[in-house]
């Protein structure tokens, strides 16, 4: 994650939210993030990229981490500044090894209907790191980097 100064943290504080494992719970937080991005003039390409990565991260946490167990929660922490957005998504599952996820872009996997979430997050964000044995994903998108995905 980025190194931070107290001044920066005070100007653009972190927001923490606990979501129930319900897909419809994503929309309110996503709306808050999109509003904050618009307030500091992130363009449409950046907003699309961040929305896509955020949705994939939270859906992965709910579906694959928490296995849609309503008793489990998803912890979201995020911060929007004029320079970048930082997002952390943590589930209450068993964790996983992100290095073991098959590459969905190779020819033999193109017809698989699932398994693209992590690849999209990595393509559309500048850094994607896993912590806590795969239970937490930490993502950063710098405003200067632009919004488009990257071809593998």
């Amino acid at each position, binding site marked *: 994650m980025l190194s931070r100064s107290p001044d920066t943290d005070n100007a653009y504080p972190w927001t923490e939210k606990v979501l129930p494992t319900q897909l419809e719970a*994503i929309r309110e937080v996503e709306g808050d993030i999109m509003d904050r991005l618009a307030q500091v003039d992130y363009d449409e390409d950046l907003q*699309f990229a961040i929305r896509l990565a955020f949705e994939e991260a939270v859906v992965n946490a709910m579906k694959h981490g928490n296995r849609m167990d309503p008793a489990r929660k998803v912890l979201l922490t995020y911060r929007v500044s004029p320079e970048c957005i930082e997002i952390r998504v943590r589930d209450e599952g068993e964790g996983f090894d992100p290095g073991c996820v098959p590459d969905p*872009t190779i020819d033999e996997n193109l*017809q698989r*209907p*699932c398994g693209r979430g992590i690849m999209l997050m990595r393509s*559309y964000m500048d850094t994607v790191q896993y912590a806590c044995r795969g239970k937490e994903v930490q993502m950063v998108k710098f405003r200067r980097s632009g919004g488009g*995905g990257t*071809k*593998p």
Partner: protein
Amino acid sequence: MKIETREESGCQVVAIIGSADVESAAALREALLGTIESGAKCIICDLGRTDFICSDALGVLITAYLKARMRGGFVRLADPQQHLKDVLATTRLDHLFDVFADVKAAAGGRKLH
């Protein structure tokens, strides 16, 4: 997300309007697979008014593509806007799907690339 279906040039056109997000994927699945199960062979997904697509919705498109192909038909994509073009390129799904500039070109089989 809203879905509109229509017949055009002998094809069934399924227009996806708005955001094809995780909450919309089930409705999209129902619309596309229902169209295939009703006997349609030529299905065109009109993406001209689709402003967002997530991996779940991409999975639905792939499932529909495979199901249509098993029944001797096909699913073609038409008129994706730049963000969706980027997603299709990033995932390399533009190598799986035939992508067309518009519905008319999709019905006639004139590919975008």
